[in-house]
């Protein structure tokens, strides 16, 4: 099995130990913050904060690159479009019918920074928080919504089950592909249609297995008296500590800085 985007990397840093709710709020605030940025100073502030938190988590910076790899293509396309179609005043150079403006280049750089910061903040959450903790945190944050009829517990339970099965299905896919390859299946050659067709021998056993696992899981949950979120107690109780408070305050300070830069100092 390959390591995939956002897989939990166990550790014992301040960020790892923080309450998942803090980290969820942090991630949402970071995303809004990054989307708000427009000037270089604002980007710098946001970047310092995001990278700083990453450094605090003790996770190797290699993982930043790893999390960015899947979106490289998307980034490249965005940059090309920005370069080609952004109309400005400062002509950098002309190539036939194409004119590249200095503003276009700057805009591309900003896009790269923006998308990267978004991905890095999201992956910091998933690198430092196990999926169980994330769903626990979500359930806890969504609890007020339950008052107006939102199925907070059910949504969280569905998410945690789905997340729980991702690695299982990845392993299972790997195993079935190998098994079919062992009896001569070919997943690489031929045109697109042939390739899609060649995955049928993988998909059918995978689905049959998935339905069976779902059934087993339901039986297992029922036989342990699962009957929804009402009256359920927790083994791991979420605790909001002073470290969480400090983390939120620091987040607030950085957010305020960006807002001040943007709306008051206008730089």
């Amino acid at each position, binding site marked *: 099995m390959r390591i995939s985007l956002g897989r939990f990397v166990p550790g014992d840093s301040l960020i790892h130990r923080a309450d998942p709710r803090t980290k969820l709020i942090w991630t949402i605030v970071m995303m809004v913050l990054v989307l708000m940025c427009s000037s270089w100073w604002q980007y710098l502030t946001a970047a310092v904060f995001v990278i700083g938190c990453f450094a605090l988590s003790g996770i190797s910076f290699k993982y930043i690159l790893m999390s960015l790899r899947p979106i490289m293509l998307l980034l490249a396309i965005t940059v090309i479009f920005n370069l080609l179609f952004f109309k400005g005043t400062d002509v950098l150079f002309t190539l036939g019918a194409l004119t590249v403006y200095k503003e276009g280049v700057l805009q591309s750089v900003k896009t790269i920074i923006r998308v990267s910061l978004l991905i890095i903040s999201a992956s910091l959450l998933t690198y430092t928080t196990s999926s169980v903790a994330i769903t626990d945190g979500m359930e806890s944050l969504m609890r007020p919504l339950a008052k107006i009829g939102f199925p907070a517990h059910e949504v969280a339970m569905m998410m945690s089950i789905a997340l729980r099965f991702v690695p299982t299905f990845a392993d299972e896919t790997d195993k079935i592909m190998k098994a079919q390859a062992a*009896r001569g299946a070919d997943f690489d050659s031929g045109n697109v249609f042939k390739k899609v067709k060649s995955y049928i021998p993988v998909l059918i056993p995978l689905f049959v297995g998935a339905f069976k696992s779902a059934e087993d899981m339901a039986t297992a949950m029922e036989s342990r008296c699962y009957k929804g979120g009402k009256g359920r107690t927790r083994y791991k109780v979420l605790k909001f500590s002073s470290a969480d408070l400090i983390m939120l305050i620091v987040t607030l300070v950085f957010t305020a800085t960006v807002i001040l830069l943007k709306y008051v100092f206008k730089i």
Partner: protein
Amino acid sequence: MSIVLENVTFTYMPKTPFEKTALNDVSLSVESGEFTAIIGHTGSGKTTLLQHFNGLLMPDKNKGSVYVDGEKITKKNVRDVRMKVGYVFQYPEHQLFEETVFKDIAFGLKRLKLSDEEIKERVLAAAKTVDLDEALLERSVFELSGGEKRRVAICGVLVTNPSYLLLDEPASGLDPAGKREIMKLLKSLNDRGMTIVFISHSMDDVAENARRVVIVNDGGIGLDGTPYEVFKNRELLTSWGLDVPEVTKLFDDLRIKSGLDIPHVITISEGVKLVEKLKAEGRLKL
């Protein structure tokens, strides 16, 4: 004719915090015609080792190579190798997918571009080998019993006439009758000249059937020899989380308790003969 592993090292998920070296500098060769069992405790690397035999896994870069009939397995020839070296996965019935048993068995033949006639011939022949009722061939694969499914799955590998057959715990999860049938099938395939290498957790099955036993221990080869040689090392095997056949333990205890000078015994038929002999010699009174 042989499969040769030369100094093979294999790492799962290299260059990540989850890195795990499952095989460490393993060299092993299996000659044509062998009937070999691979045993070892859970997680020792048996499956990883076996999957190297037909290129389902390849050694780490520059850390060893695998040769099948003298030819090194590479990305290019690996699909041809797999026609020659069949592999039956653990719980192979989980990989069935076609609408009918017949089609599922024929899946492996697709690549060979045979005529419908030839395909039918081959499937029927393979079905006969594994003792599969012809009436089952038009049924859906999902309507069969566990044991029938297992035989269909093995049939789907045999249909390409491999000269080597690798099996990962072929008898696990079957009832005693099913187990006996699978072992009988392997034996008859071997009698017909097919090389058999199988992983097993049943020391009794191994002692009764295999002619060579390879013990995998923590990613390396612990012991390698005839069942008789290997099962002499009861203490060593126990320390590796393994065991010796039940009948071996019985005669070990008998030797210690009675003080009689009796040889090591690994199969039940040997044990019966030994008891008869001891009785005839008047050394044992029953």
